[in-house]
């Protein structure tokens, strides 16, 4: 019993809170991808690479051109939003009526293109903006402000997307198209324009993630290898296109990684998280919060 109680110490609490903060980071990553899939019904395999380009944008604006962070961040969000719209215009739109596998392969091709593009243009060196945010200390527990910021941004982003979708005309049109893309054309909605706006918003959310990730990670052409697979798993776990599901899945996944890593080897945390994912794919293949048909 004593041994059992020993694990309920301050470090357990720290791990739980760090799991929540990691969940915030993952939720932020999943937000834009879910929006794109929910509306356009296309999975951007290259989503993490858009974030990588955004991180490079932040690095150059902040570290090379010496812009203040708060000026560089909106510019970076706009840059990735434009990139998202461009991606839709050049790659997705011509393939909208193609089989899903073609769309996947095309965005997969963009993934390799962006990785190679970044390697050629930016080089293979790891870049770092060198910003050290203060640390929040509560007793023996310490937390990262960068992760707190990401957590808050994920919450705000989630609420903002929700309000936009529910309360604005464009948002309503986006939801309507997500429900039935054929009928909306007959009702006079310009689906091309709506898709372009949605892609730009998805890109902007990737840009927002880039502005915050650059405070936590080095930038290099292959950072997508670290964050991309987890982002997809979370979106699928929550139900592709389901914002709330993605949000819940982010925190569940992060807590399993954090607590699994604390009680066993760190690698087991990831094994458990992926095991949970596989199990849920059997139990709830349409996602955690999918309605039963």
């Amino acid at each position, binding site marked *: 019993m004593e041994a059992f109680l020993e694990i309920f*110490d301050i*470090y357990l609490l*720290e*791990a739980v809170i*760090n799991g929540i*903060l*990691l969940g915030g*980071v993952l939720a932020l990553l999943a937000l834009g991808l879910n929006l794109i899939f929910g509306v356009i019904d296309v999975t951007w395999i290259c989503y993490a690479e858009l974030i990588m380009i955004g991180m490079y944008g932040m690095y150059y604006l902040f570290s090379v051109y010496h812009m203040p962070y708060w000026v560089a961040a909106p510019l970076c969000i706009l840059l990735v939003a434009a990139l998202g719209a461009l991606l839709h215009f050049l790659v997705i739109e011509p393939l909208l009526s193609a089989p899903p596998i073609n769309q996947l392969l095309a965005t997969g091709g963009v993934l390799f293109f962006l990785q*190679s593009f970044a*390697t050629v243009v930016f080089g*293979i*060196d*790891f*870049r*770092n903006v*060198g910003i*050290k945010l203060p*640390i929040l*200390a509560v007793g*023996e527990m*310490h*937390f*990262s*402000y*960068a*992760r707190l910021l990401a957590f808050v941004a994920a919450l705000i982003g989630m609420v903002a997307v929700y309000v936009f979708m529910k309360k604005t005309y464009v948002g309503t049109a986006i939801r309507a198209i997500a429900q039935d893309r054929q009928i909306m054309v007959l009702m006079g909605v310009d689906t091309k324009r709506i898709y372009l706006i949605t892609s730009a918003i998805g890109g902007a959310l990737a840009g927002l993630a880039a502005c915050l990730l650059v405070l*936590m*990670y*080095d930038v*290099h*052409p*292959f950072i997508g*290898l*670290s*964050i991309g697979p*987890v982002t997809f798993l979370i979106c699928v776990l929550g139900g592709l296109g389901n914002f709330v599901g993605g949000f819940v899945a982010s925190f569940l996944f*992060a807590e399993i*990684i*954090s*607590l*699994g*890593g*604390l009680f066993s*080897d*760190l*690698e087991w*945390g*990831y094994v458990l998280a992926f095991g949970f994912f596989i199990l849920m794919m059997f139990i709830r293949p349409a996602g955690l919060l999918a309605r039963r048909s």
Partner: protein
Amino acid sequence: MSKMVRLAFAFVACLGLVVAAQAQDRKIKIGVVYDLTGPFAGGGSELQYTGAKIMIDYFIKQGGVEGYQIEPIYADAQSKPDVAINEAVRLVEQEKVDMLMGFYSSAQCVPAAAKVETLKKFMWLTTCISSAVLDNRHLHYVFRPQVSGNLYGVAATDMIAEYAKSKLGKEPKDLRVAIVHEDGAYGVDVAKGDEAGSKKHGFNVVLKEGYSITAPDLSALVTKLKRARPDVIFHTGYNPDITLLLRQAREQGLKVQAIVGQGAGYSVYDKLKEGLGDDSNHLFTIDPISIWLTNPKSLDPALPPVIKMVGDAFDKAKPGASRSAHVGMSASNAYLFFTRVLPVAIKKYGGIDGEALRKAALDVDLPEGGTMLGFGVKFAAETDQLAGQNMRAFPVVTQYVDGKAVVVWPKSQQQAEPVLPLPAGTTYSNK
């Protein structure tokens, strides 16, 4: 001039042309494999490539070796073991190279060495260190002038044991140590050395754990380290996992007496400094000594001018970059091949096939100071457990002190005593 004499002249002239043509035809094709893209590239592999290329270009400019032109064919392993193997096979079977050189990552070396062995081609490993590449495999054609990974842990623990009482204020048996490593062949091998060294000195190992270099979060590991309260952390990683771990350690308030990094990402000081700022001060790294830190008086007199040449060529290739130990490592090991193995294979063993190169490699017998890296060379014979390993190679422990790399261990190479423990008030110091 009689007709006969004119004919004789013509014959000799033709013969000369044929011989000259043959001499020009004689060349050694070398497949050179490093990671030029992917995470390992920035973690040190591209610097290793630069060092090897500087040396290959140097010998090409010299007109080759013993009448053989040198034709390098460079390949990118893309930081992936499967690509490394495929490239090695492609170079041998399609490009028809005579031998292979390079290989940065141990995760690539272990399978690639086994594959190249089956192709009966000579393989000269300039970089990867894992013991698993050679241990108990009795490979015939694979040679590694580089230090073996198990010696890294020995160097790290020997140094800490030596200064435990005098600088850390604890007997070795009371010292709490944590061993943290990336979970590839490189990290696992070095961690084994750390564990064996800790056992030898009686350290109390409070945590030993591996992690994937692509893990997006290491906060749980930092929390465990805080709970385990180690005095010293032995860490083996590439980059950017090193910066991720140390950044999260700072954010979560991890405090220790020393952090002993062990090669790879820790030997790329520019990147450590960029990622960690002042927190990179007083970190350690373990690798063969930087060729620019060796004592010129202890070296073969032919070597200091070559070291200068490598430095000048590197400065020209990468203006403003600091001279990383990685560059000198591959340059020295390539130089060793072109001066001590290739000429002997050609002159004594009649060619450049795998067998001739193998015999020439086994003939090499250099005392300490015989290479730019300070150590000597003698390869273990095929019957030995570590067949193909340079048994005279040893690493040194280097510490970054106020922007300078200082060799602090072993005592025979020591430029200054290590700064231990971490100075009070610094980010990771528990003082």
